[in-house]
């Protein structure tokens, strides 16, 4: 018992000493939340920024674009990473709470359509992809592949990647009117870009989609409308499923503030290099 008392008093005294020593200095905190697609960029930027400014704690969380928007609306984060633009409902909810979202485009991204590398299909049209996701085409043999039931994998509905895909692939014009098609009921929904890749690389019959930065040799990116996804085709708009990646702040950040320096990092040479090395397309170079 005596020894325990000793330990307790030691802990208390360490606590008191450290408290009195550190009371005055307060570290600056920059909280980022949102998209798993922007995640790699945000994480690399965070590390770069913390190395340059050791007194700043930049924290990054990857919970999906929708949650990023919610966090910004509730003022629980400083920067919301989003792989889609804010929706009207989110904007009005933000404005009601006195938050004025400002978009910073940090990089361009394509959405490669992924299949297992053993799949002989090398390209699809937007129409075919839409039909596959609607459930009209259910077998690879209908698009020139082997006789195999297609396993449709999609991102969860909270993700900006899902929204982008929905807008650029599932929406089409029928008789002069724009129609949003629904993804078929049997589709699998997974929570992150990495999970899509993991599902596709382990399932020969799968089809999925993910951000450019998540594609490696373990999956095959299809040509869409005859165009292969690459930085050049994405930024020129030749690749059909492309989008900008955003960071949203509440109002334009005060010049010279840490938030300002952080959301303009992508304009510096180092920032562009980081974006390129991760696999996305810098906004300024091409």
């Amino acid at each position, binding site marked *: *018992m005596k020894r325990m008392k000793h330990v307790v008093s030691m802990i208390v005294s360490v*606590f008191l000493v*450290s*408290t009195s*020593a*550190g*009371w005055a*200095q*307060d*570290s600056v*905190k920059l*909280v980022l939340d949102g998209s*798993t697609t922007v*995640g*790699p960029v*945000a*994480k*690399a930027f*965070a*590390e*770069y920024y*913390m190395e340059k400014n050791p007194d700043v*704690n*930049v*924290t*990054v*969380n*990857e*919970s999906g674009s929708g949650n990023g928007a919610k966090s910004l609306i*509730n003022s*629980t*984060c400083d920067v919301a990473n989003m792989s889609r633009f804010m929706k009207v409902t989110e904007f009005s909810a933000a404005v009601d709470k006195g938050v004025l979202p400002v978009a910073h485009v940090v990089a361009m991204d394509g959405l490669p359509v992924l299949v*297992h*590398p*053993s*799949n*002989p299909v090398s390209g699809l049209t937007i129409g075919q992809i839409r039909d596959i996701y609607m459930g009209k085409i259910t077998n690879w043999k209908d698009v020139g592949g*082997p*006789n*195999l039931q297609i396993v449709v994998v999609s991102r969860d509905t909270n993700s900006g990647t899902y929204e982008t895909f929905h807008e650029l692939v599932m929406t089409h014009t029928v008789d002069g009117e724009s129609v949003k098609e629904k993804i078929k009921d049997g589709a699998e929904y997974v*929570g*992150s*870009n*990495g*999970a899509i*890749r*993991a599902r596709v690389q382990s399932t*020969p019959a799968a089809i999925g989609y993910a951000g450019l*930065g*998540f594609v*490696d*040799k*373990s999956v*095959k990116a299809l040509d869409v409308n005859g165009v292969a996804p690459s930085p050049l085709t994405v930024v020129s708009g030749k690749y059909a499923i492309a989008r900008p990646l955003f960071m949203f702040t509440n109002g334009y950040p005060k010049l010279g503030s840490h938030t300002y320096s952080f959301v303009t990092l992508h304009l510096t040479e*180092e920032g562009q*290099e*980081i974006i390129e*090395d*991760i*696999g996305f397309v810098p906004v300024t170079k091409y």
Partner: protein
Amino acid sequence: MRISTRKLLDRSFSSVGVISIALMGLILLVILVPIFRKGIGALVFEATVEHRRLILDNFDHGDDLELAAEIKSAREARQPVYEMVQAFESRQQAKIDSLRPDLETLAERDDSMGRLVARRLKRLGPDEDFLEQVETIQQLVPRLREYGDGDDAPKEIAAISSGITRITSQTLAFAELKEVLYDLLGPAPGEPMPQLTRKQYGQTRWEKARETIDHLFFIERWDYSGPGMGTLVREPRVEQFRETEIEPLFAYVEGHAEAMLQPRWTLYWGFLTDKPLDSHIFGGIYPELIGTIYLTLGAILFAVPIGIIAAIYFTEYAKAGRLISFLRACVSTLAGVPSIVFGMFGLAFFLNVWQLPKGVLAGSLTLALLILPVIIRASEEAIRSVPHTYREAALSLGAGRWRTIVTVILPAALPGILTGIVISMGRAAGETAPIIFTAAASVAAPLSLNPLQAWDQPTAALSWNIYNLCTEHEAADEIRHVQFGMVAVLITVVLALNLFAIILRARIAKKLKG
């Protein structure tokens, strides 16, 4: 029932018991052994000279004089490789230069083709990057072909475009080879240093390096000529470079791989004490470790006083009745509520209603709610199991109720209460769902050791980051060792806590008896 039947039944029952215990142990082994075996790989592995360079550059561990000698000898071993690459490049460069006179005559023509070629010519020359030059002339080919079909096109145009194609086909293969070499060895001497740490060094782990060497020797491509799914074909890369300066490179790398990378068995303690580098691809898991400790201790700090007081109330003060049995049922129900519900509650209550910042405090409070029922239950059981005679003796000596509880009952119940606390510590350390919305971050600076600075900071934590690294990380396949390392550390923490509980309980029980 006959006595022999009874014996038989008895025996079969105990053998079933033994079998089920053995099965449980086996399952535990099957799960834990591979986890620890792979997890150890994060700490103990064959590290290459690149690893030692990285550690010295970023964390200042290691002996720089010794390392300088190593780097020097590794560089000497690598030199022939770079020389071969250089020789190949300069020969290809000479080929590009030999096209120059033809292109220059073409550039003099006063039409769109001439102007295009003139523009491209400016980007050619020995000062420019070799691969970029190849790309520049490669883009000319389709235009040249198109132009060659015209009536007034010069005859030599076909020769030019076929000349370009000859250069480019071999160069594409060369570019791929160079990429693999970069993966293996990092930037060549004199090359500019990239920003991302993952691009600054070659392979840091020998087993990964061997994989990369395999990529260097063999091209993997998928063959779709057969019916059905494609098959993976491996072709020796050397075939693409027969009778070039690159050909001897493969044999050289095979013979000198160890000299180039200098693998050595290493115990990397920094895995526990270094911060991660380049989103966990390198470095350690210090922020996760300290975050987990903070969240766990925070949860205990809030849950223990409330839990013990509630248990005392339930056992000593409350009069049996409907309300109390209802409250007890509530506590039991709470113990069975899925942890994500606590997470959502924490978000809705602590963050949105109380307006706490997302961070250690909000996360600890949420975890405290999660473990509260367990602590209440364990303390209640412990207090209840204190023999009634203790109470009677204390009361008969004139102690009041409160005094009896504090001086007699609680000390006697301490082993049970402590066990409950330590076991729920293990639970709090391992929970993911309650902290997703209230405290967790994928990347964050390690928490300050001063709680007053740490309480409002979001933090990385073992449980959440294991999930994050396995599913969301852009290079999840490359960092299996980090994932397993984290899992092993988490399990070790939980096991150690449980072991600690057992020992503590035994020691206190012994002391109370004696």
